[in-house]
């Protein structure tokens, strides 16, 4: 029977008054109760109320106003939000608090009326900031106000805890699109309303969240909310202080949770963290799936040996690193979480739940034009199978040095077993020429790591300039690998392996500055172009190569930064092809002959190279 809730409930109210007149707290002598004054600001500051503006806000933003008031009462609170760049402060914000506590345990909402000079959205309004312990801050945010007075409600998640509260009301609001304005708040008071109902609370924003973790990891319960259903049937949600929540773990041997909602993983297995506010079970949960003590690197990755002058380092203790904006852009759908750890005193980045992660150096893009290689050390505890891959994507923003604009370039390389192994440092060291889609690299801005290994440790991420792998050598010490094409499929110009076209002049005088010599590497001949500007080769006889598919050559250069090769038919008709330089050791190059159109492939007679540096060549031939 709920007669007491019916229309004539005020009668019962009267009866309650009589009751309460009789009630005496006989046991209350030992603990003095704080007064339960509900008024905060009606027409003036209530008893013992103080105001303090927040740091950086306009100190005078709040004034008592006697003109614009709710319901023609004698005064309201006026708040002047500054324009952007106001010298007095960036926003309006402050807290109203009392010097001694109030007992608010008999109220279920803080209510107030508000209006503004224009439609606007207040950043945050709440209670519980006492400029001391600030134990119970609870606030509503994104509060829409307009030019009409409207009543607002802030739910009190568990009133029984507020027996000595000093934080009565606080607010913070910045300019709207750079523009200041004024809003008013009036009739601020705590109330116990029967017209609000269904108090609810939530952790993890009401979702059932699952997180993989390992022993000793600390994970915080977030998304703490409290709501109450307003008289119009709509829920008002508030961000609630953690102090209102009582947390518990389904298995303390796996995960413990403290009063601050911090979960410490203690063992292997699954534990569910739930919470209550008062006796009401909060919606949402945090399930910890603990792998126990996860394997992790016990030794640091090998220390890089490249000379600092030849390196652009993003992450390494060996080098001075260039600025990286972030090691986790948290792009949409990325589940990766990064932590910065030490392994044998060496800094290492640990990723877990890695599906993909963006790394950005947009603010200071990297010009790796003079670099030849990309290096990254990775370590994974996860099992390696043939199908699983680890991927490295490099993105260049192009000449505009900004995302988009049609000039962005990127290329992704995929690494699998046997390169990737489990629980070993894997040094991934690849020529930048392997990133074939990355034809320019003067404005590198992003690195994206992805693949099938959710747990990855990385270290020593850098670009470097290879000197042929011989530690600064300027010439090869070993010959290019011998070609293995059947002789019948080859027309050879320069090779120890085949019969060459007779009578070829490898140094015709075309006015070049290049010094050409024939050198011997372990009894295998090679051509050396020293100080190249350009250099021709005159075939001993015109050749019909229309039955062939490629112009093949082996190329070695440590210092050339620009190199082109031309195939020439009489006319002359010549077409250049750009070669990737410098190389990492001998680089085997097969150029489709179709690349040289419109050169007459039935009648070619010269080759020309243009560029710079010292260039070594071998096995110049046409092949099927």
């Amino acid at each position: 029977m709920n007669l007491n809730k019916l229309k004539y409930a005020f009668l019962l109210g009267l009866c309650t008054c009589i009751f309460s007149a009789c009630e005496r707290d006989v046991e209350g002598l030992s603990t003095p109760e704080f007064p339960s004054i509900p008024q905060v600001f009606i027409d003036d500051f209530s008893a013992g109320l103080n105001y303090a503006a927040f740091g950086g806000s306009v100190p005078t933003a709040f004034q008592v106003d006697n003109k614009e008031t709710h319901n023609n009462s004698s005064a309201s609170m006026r708040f002047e939000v500054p324009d952007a760049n106001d010298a007095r402060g960036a926003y309006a914000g402050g807290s109203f608090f009392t010097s001694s506590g109030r007992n608010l345990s008999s109220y279920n909402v803080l209510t107030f009326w508000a209006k503004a000079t224009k439609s606007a959205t207040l950043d945050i309004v709440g209670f519980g900031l006492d400029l001391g312990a600030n134990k119970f801050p609870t606030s509503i945010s994104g509060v829409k106000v307009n030019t009409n007075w409207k009543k607002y409600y802030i739910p009190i998640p568990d009133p029984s805890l507020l027996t000595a509260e000093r934080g009565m009301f606080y607010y913070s609001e910045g300019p709207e699109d750079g523009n200041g304005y004024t809003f008013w708040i009036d009739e601020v008071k705590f109330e116990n309303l029967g017209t609000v109902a269904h108090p609810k609370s939530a952790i993890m924003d009401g979702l059932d969240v699952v997180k993989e973790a390992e022993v000793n990891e600390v994970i915080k319960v977030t998304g703490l909310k409290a709501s109450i259903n307003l008289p119009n049937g709509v829920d008002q949600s508030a961000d609630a202080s953690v102090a209102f929540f009582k947390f518990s773990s389904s298995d303390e041997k796996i995960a413990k949770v403290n009063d601050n909602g911090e979960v410490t993983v203690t063992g292997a297995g699954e534990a569910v963290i739930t919470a209550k506010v008062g006796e009401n079970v909060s919606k949402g949960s945090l399930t910890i799936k603990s792998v126990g003590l996860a394997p992790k690197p016990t030794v640091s990755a090998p220390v890089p040996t490249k000379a600092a002058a030849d390196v652009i380092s993003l992450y390494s203790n060996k080098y001075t690193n260039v600025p990286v904006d972030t090691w986790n852009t948290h792009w949409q759908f990325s589940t990766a979480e990064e932590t910065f750890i030490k392994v044998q005193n060496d800094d290492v980045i640990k990723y877990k739940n890695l599906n993909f992660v963006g790394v950005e150096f947009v603010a200071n893009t990297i010009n790796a034009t003079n670099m030849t290689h990309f290096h990254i050390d990775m370590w994974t505890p996860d099992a390696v199978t043939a199908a699983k891959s680890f991927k490295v994507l490099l993105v260049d923003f192009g000449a505009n040095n900004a995302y988009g604009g049609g000039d962005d370039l990127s290329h992704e390389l995929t690494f699998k077993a046997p390169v990737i192994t489990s629980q070993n440092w894997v040094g991934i060291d690849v020529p930048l020429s392997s990133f074939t889609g990355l034809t320019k690299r003067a404005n590198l801005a992003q690195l994206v790591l992805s693949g099938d290994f959710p747990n990855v440790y990385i270290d020593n991420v850098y670009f470097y300039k290879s000197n042929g792998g011989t530690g600064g050598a300027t010439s090869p010490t070993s010959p290019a690998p011998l070609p293995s094409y059947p002789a019948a499929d080859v027309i050879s110009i320069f090779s120890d392996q085949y019969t060459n076209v007779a009578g070829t002049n490898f140094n015709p005088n075309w006015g070049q500055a290049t010094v050409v010599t024939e050198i011997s590497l372990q009894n295998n001949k090679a051509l050396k172009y020293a100080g190249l500007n350009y250099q021709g080769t005159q075939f001993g006889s015109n050749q019909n190569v229309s039955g062939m598919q490629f112009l093949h050559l082996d190329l070695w250069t440590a210092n050339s930064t620009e190199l082109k090769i031309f195939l020439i038919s009489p006319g002359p008709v010549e077409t250049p092809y750009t070669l990737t330089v410098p190389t990492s050791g001998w680089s085997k190059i097969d150029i489709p002959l179709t690349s040289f159109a419109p050169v007459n492939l039935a009648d070619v007679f010269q080759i020309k190279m243009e560029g710079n540096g010292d260039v070594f060549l071998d096995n110049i031939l046409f092949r099927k």
Partner: protein
Amino acid sequence: MNNRNIVLASFVCVITFCLGCEADNFQKLDERKWTLTWSDEFSGSELDLTKWKYDIGQGQNGWGNGEYQTYTKRPENIKLDTGNLVITALNVPFGGANFSSARIKTQGLFAQKYGRFEARIKTPYGPGIWPAFWMLGENISEVGWPRCGEIDILEIRGQMPNTVFGTLHGPGYSGGNPVNIMYSLIDARFDDDFYVYAVEWDDNKIDFFINDYLYGSIKKEQLPGDWVFNQPFYMILNVAVGGSFVGFPTAQTPFPQQMLVDYVRVYQESN
């Protein structure tokens, strides 16, 4: 059975207690002797299909009201749970509708002329939610609506959870222009607890009660059209989502929404 006497007895207690405060809240009601003729306490594990039939689907024009939901008999939408009938409105698309809910009726199984019809209900809430406990004339298939008559014992707009409507529809006073009585709680809401909603109906008036408080009475001579409440009526329980009476559900309407019915009881006057 003498339910009334027990209720009256408790009334007297309250009245004596409050008498000194406010005399106007004393209700002197005629004493009646009610005999229980039909009831469902919903104490089993499944809906008693000898007492109720399901209405299924989206009906014609949203059951004549532009309702948005489809009605199903899935346990997600209707079940018995710890002594209550639970009708649940969901905002999960089903059967071509964006919302689903349930509606049951005693048509063809039980109907009665005159007497007391009551149900103890905890209502759902939220914009666009429309719970109802109501009755239609058993002759609806012969004479059609509104000539068959309609008695709405409980209707609530979820965006006004403190206000109940008791309503009569008949020829000349139907649809958007019925005869109704509105009753609001000042500092409480009907969705916050169980309330007993009842009508007491005889040959010249229908009285509307909440927790045995008579909040309104519609008499034969007050009606702008024919008194068609002189033949058996059957009962309906449902939760609609959206419709002409309640308006749209909004993105802020909390879902799921449940109507809990503790019991439905029907009495006939004895002497």
